[in-house]
């Protein structure tokens, strides 16, 4: 199995077509069948097989995308266009979300810290939460919600209008031509956006802690530099890159396999956002666990 294009569902005219992937099942047309008689019905498939198949097809697409990244010619123009589009729809909302988010964390941590007389650690705690958790998640939500839905709708409507079939017929792989630039664009935007959100969130937290809660600027920064280390930033960016990849691949997967007509595209967009959210939070949990195990805290 080399890629999902191989077992793509068969386009428009066959709504009765089974789940999106899977190799062609052994033909029900038994060999000795009398001419014109109906082939025997297939056996009832195992429950849950559909899910398994979808998951497999999603992974197959991810692998195909990774392989196609290195295939020449690289679609630079498409990449720049998509990058610009995704950046333009995510930058402003990301900044606007990250200010109150940083503030909330600072206020919460600050009030908790003052209750246990540990105000001097507010800075370190809120900045770490911001950089490691809040910022990649804000990026993930925006990439999935704003960029992923747009990618899914775009690819989905092209699929049902047979544009992707036409592209394949012309010997152009839609994965290489359309999906790879989009996935790379979501990764790049996610990584850069993550940096911006971290900065804006940290500044917001600093402002609220110092101005609203009468924290001392010196203590805030001192505790920050005492507890934070560079790997915190690395894991944040790694998370952002991975979230961008997942959001891009899931959106492309649902967009390439809409089920039946314009309504199918709407459903696909909906599902792509929901699936991405679920996956992102799960992956975030796993990555955080791995990070805490592998990287020793500063000063330990």
């Amino acid at each position, binding site marked *: 199995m*080399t*890629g999902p*294009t*191989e*077992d*793509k569902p*068969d*386009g428009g*005219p*066959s709504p*009765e*077509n*089974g789940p999106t992937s899977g190799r*062609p*099942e*052994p*033909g*029900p*047309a038994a060999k000795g069948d009398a*001419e*014109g008689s*109906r*082939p025997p*019905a*297939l056996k009832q498939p195992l429950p849950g097989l559909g899910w398994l198949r979808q998951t497999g097809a999603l992974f197959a697409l991810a692998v195909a995308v990774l392989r196609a990244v290195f295939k020449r010619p690289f679609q630079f123009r498409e990449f720049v266009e998509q990058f610009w589009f995704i950046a333009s729809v995510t930058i402003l909302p990301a900044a606007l979300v990250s200010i109150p988010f940083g503030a909330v964390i600072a206020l919460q941590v600050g009030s908790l810290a003052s209750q246990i007389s540990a105000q001097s650690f507010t800075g370190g705690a809120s900045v770490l939460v911001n950089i490691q958790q809040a910022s990649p998640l804000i990026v993930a939500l925006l990439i999935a919600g704003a960029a992923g839905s747009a990618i899914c709708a775009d690819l989905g*409507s*092209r699929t049902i*209008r*047979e*544009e992707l*079939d*036409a592209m*394949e*017929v*012309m*010997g*152009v*792989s839609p994965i290489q*031509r359309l999906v790879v630039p989009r996935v790379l664009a979501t990764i790049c935007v996610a990584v850069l956006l993550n940096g911006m959100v971290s900065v804006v969130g940290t500044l917001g937290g600093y402002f609220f802690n110092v101005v609203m809660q009468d924290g001392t600027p010196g203590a805030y920064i001192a505790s920050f530099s005492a507890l934070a280390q560079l790997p915190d930033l690395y894991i944040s960016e790694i998370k952002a890159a991975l979230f961008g990849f997942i959001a891009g691949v899931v959106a492309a997967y649902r967009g390439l396999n809409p089920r039946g007509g314009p309504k199918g595209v709407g459903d696909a967009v909906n599902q792509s956002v929901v699936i991405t959210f679920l996956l992102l939070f799960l992956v975030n949990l796993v990555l955080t666990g791995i990070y805490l195990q592998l990287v020793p805290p500063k000063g330990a």
Partner: protein
Amino acid sequence: MGIEVSVEGLTKSFGSKNIWQDVSLTLPTGEVSVMLGPSGTGKTVFLKSMIGLIKPESGRVLVDGVDMVNSSERDVYEARKLFGLMFQDGALFGSMNLFDNIAFPLREHTKKKESEIRRIVMERLEMVGLVGDEGKLPGEISGGMRKRAGLARALVLDPQIILCDEPDSGLDPVRTSFLSQLLIDLNAQIDATMLIVTHNLDIAATVPDNMGMLFRRNLVTFGPREVLLTSEEPVVAQFLSGSKQGPIGMSEEKDAAALAAERGRAEDPGIERNLLVPQLEPSPGLPERSAVRRRQHRVEGMLDSLTPAARSAIRSSLAARSETATVATQAAPYRPASSGRADDTGPTGQAGSDA
């Protein structure tokens, strides 16, 4: 120069629904073939299987040594460059204007300079009568124009195999005749192997060298056009006459009870028409179709295995053709009345916008 396409034992099902089984046929090099069939018999699926967009469960489609069904993805992509497929509604890229749409294969697969791309695209646009519309988006033009633009895009890489999915649907009879003529002219110019999927009888009667018909999950017949046109097979006869009487019903196929009930009803002879008309000739000024001679040899070789009706039909059409060859200076006199020519001065020219 076209390429022979040979289909062997192709079977396709969606889930438990069998579309067709064990379809075997050969599209001879450079000849024009038509696949007929009632709606919903999987003609489009057949076309898409030939080009590897749909993977049948079993069977092979051999094109230039590549099996479009089972070969590796890389080989299939490479082989697809030999094909031009005209989709039912054009399948143009909605975000690009017509020029960019038609230039797309050139920009993807060749390193031609922009000026040369422009020249080729304009040439193809002129061929299908869309000059002046190249800046329009697919959403801004009529269905017929989209179809023609789709054909222009399919032609831009000089394909050796051209597949047309219902070229007539959504076109008026005049444009359909122009399109038929265009397809024949194309064949004369580039000698590509062509397969047209349709249920339009005018195209079926005037364009192809070979004809086949899909019905009830099977290929009913495939062979020289005269064989199908003279066929006594009830399905074929009913389809060609458009009669309500026969095995084809409103739904996919009639069941036995409906057939029995039908016997009591009045006869429906359908529309009497003579489909055994001579084939279209290329427009004056174009070269002879080199497929004609190859076909003549091929058909003469198989003459003995055919029914007497088909044999005499083939004989008379071959005789008629050699007659025209001797009086080639005259404009082709065997053109059926319905088919126009590019130089006709009718009120509806091909270049006219039918938006």
